[in-house]
């Protein structure tokens, strides 16, 4: 049992048109709208992954945050890693759900798009990250009205102590009508920050 000594190895947040990795502001672009900002962040962070542009906003946001956080830590991208993905949010995939609904509301103009429909599940974002980083590990997507640190903390600890995962990428990735927010942290057996509920809340609120 490795309980009690779990750490947070790193964290990344994308919100208010700012990208922060472990205390460091990597970029900001206060004036632009969300999709322009995402595109700019994609370029500035040297993501280099054309499939990014096929994703919906929720997947783009989660994918970018995960990529920024994991890239410096993964030396050999072909090496098998057991990093579980445990994400949460309040709006599920509703932004894309609304888009799909629009395409079927008018019976005279009824053309549902498979490329939109496939993103009407929040866990597709986890699938995109798994494909990019070759993670054959667990994916779970939870919906809470607010960031629920207690459940995420216990769940991540359970995954590592039972050896279902070596590390857990946890957090909150949300896109709704007029707001977006990503906050991810990597729970591990190594790192400088204690894996405590209070610490996680501090990282989440002082971004």
């Amino acid at each position, binding site marked *: 049992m490795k309980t009690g000594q779990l750490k947070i190895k790193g964290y990344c947040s994308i919100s208010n048109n700012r990208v922060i990795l472990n205390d460091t502001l990597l970029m900001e672009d206060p004036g632009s709208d969300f999709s322009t900002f995402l595109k700019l962040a994609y370029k500035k962070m040297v993501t280099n992954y054309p499939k990014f542009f096929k994703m919906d906003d929720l997947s783009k946001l989660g994918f970018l945050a995960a990529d920024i956080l994991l890239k410096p830590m993964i030396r050999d991208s072909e090496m098998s890693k057991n990093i579980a993905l445990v994400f949460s949010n*309040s*709006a*599920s995939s*509703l932004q894309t*759900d*609304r888009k*799909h*609904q629009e*395409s*079927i*509301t008018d*019976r005279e103009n*009824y053309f*549902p*798009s*498979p490329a939109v*429909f*496939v993103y*009407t*599940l*929040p*866990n*597709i974002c*986890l*699938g*995109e990250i*798994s*494909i990019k*980083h*070759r*993670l*054959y*590990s*667990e*994916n*779970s*997507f*939870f*919906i*809470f*009205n607010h960031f*629920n640190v*207690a*459940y995420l903390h*216990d*769940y991540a*600890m*359970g*995954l590592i*102590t*039972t050896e*279902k995962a070596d590390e857990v990428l946890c957090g909150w990735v949300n896109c709704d009508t007029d707001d977006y927010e990503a906050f991810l942290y990597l729970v591990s057996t190594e790192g400088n920050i204690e894996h405590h509920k209070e610490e996680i809340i501090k990282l989440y609120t002082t971004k």
Partner: protein
Amino acid sequence: MNSTYLSYNNIVSSLGFDSPTVVKNMHEGLSGITLIEDENLFPDPFYASVIDSHYLSKAFKKLGRNGGYTRLEQMMILSLGNIITASGVELTDRVGLILSTTKGNIDCLDPKHHMPPERAYLGTLGHIVKNYFGFATEPIVLSNACVSGLLAIAVGKRFISQGTFDQVFIVGGDVVSNFILSGFNSFQALSPLPCKPYCKQRSGINIGEAAASVLITKDNNNLPAEAVEILGEASCNDANHISGPSRTGEGLYRSILSAFKEAKVGPSHIDYISAHGTATQFNDEMEAIALNRLGLGSVPLNSLKGYFGHTLGASGLVETIVGMHSLYHNTLYSSMGFTELGVSQPLNIITAPTVRNLDCFLKTASGFGGCNTAAVFKKLGS
């Protein structure tokens, strides 16, 4: 580590509103799939498993709280209420609530729906169910495509092992909606006929609706006769494609292997496989490949999609509950719709109800996003 058990259970579906009735109807060879003509749901007639609306509202009215609940909420409340009463469990702060759903009240996004579109928030659905019964803990909503129901069982078990809860009530559900039908149709995945999992003539899925509930507990005193122990579970991603299943069945293969490891069992311990079997070309083929990589090609197997359609977030729960009753009755139920094997690897598809001593079963599920989940369950006192 302490043992955890699947205890009181319920299925609300087109085959009945409680588990024994549903299983009895299955045994008699009834299917809930019918031809539906409803332009509000889909422009053309389609095959699906839909709950009779009059029967549903009659059953819900008996609870004495009439207005203000959506179709899905009524189904979930009926199902969960049944097992809360049967178990007699008091809803303290040691009791968790997990909801498993892919789309929740998604029908409320339709401008013609009488409820506001805000009702489609899954957190709202969680709180409606929580408040109806007076749970003392925050609801956990799990929305992980078609593995949601089975993964919810794994999640519940882990929260108990981790010490967060002593008992967890799980309710899963999804409804047949124009949202889902139009989407699967754009994927050209809907079958024009009742679905035929693993069959040579299979031509895609039928959508179904259901709500199902189960109590997970570490208390081995108050258990019903059909209770089972959760021996092991795991969930692994294909890391391959967001909609197409892996050609090698990688994620499913790894999920089963890892569930076996925790359960300390091997292929020879498995008496029965309750597989996913959606009846699409690629899914069924992928499962056959993954199962044969593990030497499970000769174990009796069924898909229950021919009875219930694909009930999405409820499917893993519905199928696990039927598996519990299958062990209890020592009976293997037919894989409805199957006539001739249509996958490249051998599978031992159950073609008639068969009485046999059953001890242990494997349940699997796979879904969009490349997710897969497997779990092993064992009969008690065996």
